[in-house]
C-alpha cells in the first residue's frame, strides 16, 4: 500500500496549499510557450508536457533580478537592497531533469559566497517531481546517469498511476513531508500500480567524453570547429538550460538613480568575453561552443564532482539550427573510442 494523490483531489490540494500561504507553481501554457509559473488552481497546470519549454531555473534565478536601488546625491550614494520574494512555495509537476538541475547548481551558488537570491528561494521551495512516462528524441537524462524518475533535487516524487488517475507519492525530504502533511487528508492509501517510467536510451558515454575533454591535446582539436560550423551564436541553449548559471551585473537607469540588476548572460555571445580593448579571447563561435562543453563536462565536474547537465535536452530541442549537447557528446564518444 502506498499513498496516492488522485488527480481529482489536486485542485483541493492547490487550494489547501494556497490557503496555507504557499505559492503554488507548476508547468503552464502561456501564449504559445510553456513555462513554470504561479497558478491559482490546478486546472491551470499542464501536466501532460514532456517538459516545459523553459526550465525551472528561472524560479530560483530569474532572468533579470533587481539587486539594489541606488540614488546619487551630491554628498553620498544611497542604496537599498532588493531581497528575493519570501514565503513558502510548492512547485508541483517538475520533471526529474529540472529538479536535478537545481541540485547541480546548489554548490555553484554556495561554494565561496552564498547567493541569497538562490538559497532563500531554494530553502522555501518544495519541489514535487512527477516521474516521466513519456519522453521525446531529445531527452538524454540516462546518458548523464540520471533517470526519468531521479530523486535528485526533489522533495516529493510522484509516480503516475497506470490508470492515469493520479500519482503514487514518495516523500523524499522533511520539507516535502511537511508540505504534504497539509493535504494528508486528501491523499489515500492504495495499491493502484504505477505506470512504467519511460525508457530513455543512452546516447553517449559521458565518462569517456569526460576523459577526452580532459586531454589537453583535444583543446585545439579541429573537431570543435567542425561541430560548431552552423552555430549562430544565440543564447537560446544557455537560457533554456536548467543548469547554465552565468550572469552579468548591469546598472540600469538614469544618471543619478537606478537599479543594479543581475541578468542572465551567455557564453554563446561574442560580447561575453569581449574586453574593453576590443580583444576577445574567445573570438570565434567554435571557441565559445568548446567553452560551453568544457565547462559543463570538464571544469564544472572538476570543481563540483558533477556534470553541469541534467539531460533535459532543451539545448537541442529549441536550437534554431538543430545543434546541441547530444550531438557533440555523441561525436566525442566516437572520437574517444
Amino acid at each position, binding site marked *: 500500500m502506498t499513498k496516492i494523490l488522485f488527480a481529482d483531489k489536486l485542485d483541493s490540494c492547490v487550494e489547501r496549499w494556497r490557503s496555507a500561504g504557499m505559492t503554488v507553481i507548476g508547468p503552464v501554457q*502561456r*501564449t*504559445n*510557450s510553456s*513555462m513554470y509559473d504561479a497558478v491559482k488552481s490546478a486546472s491551470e497546470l499542464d501536466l501532460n508536457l514532456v517538459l516545459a*519549454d*523553459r526550465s525551472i531555473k528561472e524560479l530560483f534565478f530569474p*532572468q*533579470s533580478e533587481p539587486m539594489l536601488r541606488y540614488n546619487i546625491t551630491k554628498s553620498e550614494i544611497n542604496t537599498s537592497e532588493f531581497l528575493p520574494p519570501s514565503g513558502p512555495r510548492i512547485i508541483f509537476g517538475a520533471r526529474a531533469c529540472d529538479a536535478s538541475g537545481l541540485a547541480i547548481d546548489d554548490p555553484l551558488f554556495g561554494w565561496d559566497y552564498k547567493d541569497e537570491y538562490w538559497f532563500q528561494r531554494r530553502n522555501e521551495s518544495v519541489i514535487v517531481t512527477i516521474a516521466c512516462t513519456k519522453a521525446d*528524441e*531529445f531527452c538524454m537524462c540516462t546518458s548523464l546517469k540520471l533517470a526519468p524518475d531521479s530523486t535528485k533535487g526533489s522533495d516529493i516524487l510522484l509516480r503516475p498511476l497506470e490508470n492515469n488517475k493520479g500519482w503514487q507519492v514518495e516523500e523524499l525530504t522533511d520539507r516535502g513531508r511537511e508540505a504534504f502533511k497539509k493535504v494528508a487528508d486528501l491523499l489515500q492509501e492504495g495499491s493502484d500500480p504505477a505506470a512504467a517510467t519511460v525508457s530513455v536510451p543512452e546516447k553517449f558515454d559521458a565518462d569517456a567524453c569526460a576523459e577526452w575533454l580532459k586531454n589537453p591535446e583535444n583543446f585545439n582539436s579541429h573537431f570543435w570547429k567542425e561541430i560548431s*560550423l*552552423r552555430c*549562430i*551564436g*544565440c*543564447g*537560446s541553449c*544557455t*537560457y*533554456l538550460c536548467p543548469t547554465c548559471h552565468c550572469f*552579468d551585473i*548591469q546598472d*540600469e537607469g538614469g544618471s543619478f538613480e537606478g537599479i543594479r*540588476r543581475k*541578468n*542572465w548572460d*551567455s557564453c554563446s*555571445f561574442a*560580447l561575453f568575453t569581449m574586453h574593453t580593448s576590443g580583444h576577445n579571447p574567445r573570438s*570565434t563561435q567554435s571557441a565559445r561552443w568548446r567553452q560551453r562543453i568544457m565547462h559543463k563536462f570538464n571544469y564544472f565536474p572538476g570543481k563540483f564532482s558533477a556534470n553541469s547537465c541534467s539531460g533535459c535536452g532543451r539545448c*537541442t530541442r*529549441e536550437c*534554431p*539550427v*538543430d*545543434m*546541441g549537447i*547530444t*550531438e557533440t557528446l555523441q561525436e566525442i564518444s566516437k572520437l574517444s573510442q
Partner: protein
Amino acid sequence: MSIEQLYRTRAKELLSSGEVKMVIGYGAGSNKERRRPLFITSAEECDKLVLDSACISNLSGYLLTEGLLSDEKRVAVFLRPEGVRALNVLAAEAQLDTAQIVIIGFDSPKGELKALEGSSVEEFTALITALKEITPETAGEEQLAKIEKMSPEERFLFWQEEFSKCIKCYACRQACPMCYCRRCIVDSNQPQWVNTSSHTLGNFEWNIVRAFHLSGRCVECGNCDRACPVNIPLRLINRKMAEEVLNSFNHFAGTSKTQEPVLASFKKDDSETFIL
C-alpha cells in the same frame, strides 16, 4: 531524377570542377521534421545533402561567416526566393559580392518541391519582381488583420503578453541574415539605448529596435520567427513593416543588388500627412 538527386549531382560537379570551394545546403536533422545546415567541401560528401519541403531556413546568413568569402573563391548555397532577395540586400549593403555566390535555387509552394532556374542573382530578378506584386494579398496573415483591428490598448496588451516572454537570447538577431553588425546597438553600452534586462520594458525596446532596423530590409524568410524559443510571432511585425515600406515608398527589399536602402534615401514628395 529527383530534384534532390539533381542538386546533389550539381553540387558534386561544382566542387569537383573547383568552381566553388564550398556548398552550403541542408542535411538530415535530429528528427524527421528537422533539417540542419550543412557545409560541404568535397564531392564525396554531397550524398549527405537533403532537399525537401522541410528545408526552410534561409542559409544566406552563413555567407557572412568571417573570412569565408575573403579569398575571393566562390561558394554555392541552397536558397529559396527569399534567400535570393537576402543576397541582393546584402550585396546592396556591401556585405558580399554576388559574383562569388552560386545559387542553387528551390522553392516549395504548397509543400511541393520545385527547382528554380538560374545560379546568379540577376537570373532571379523576374521571379522576385513577380513576388513583389503578389506578396501583399497572399501573405496577409489573419492574425495581422486581427491585430490591426484592435484598439491601441488591446494591441499594447497583445504585445506586452508576447514580449514579456522574451528571454533576450537574441536568437532572432543571430538567425537573421540582415543582422550582420559587428556590434549590435543593444551591445553598445555608452549609452545603453536598449535596456539589456529582459523585463518587459527592455523586451519592448529590443523588439521595436530590431523591427525598425529591419524595416525595408527584411525579406521575410522567417528565420527569426522560427528561431524564437518562446514563440513570439516576430513574423507579424516584419510583415507589417514590409507592408508599410511597400505602401509608403513602393519598396520591396531585395529586388536587385543595387537597390537603394529605403531609409537612406528619400523622395521630396514622400507622404507626410501625419506631420502637423
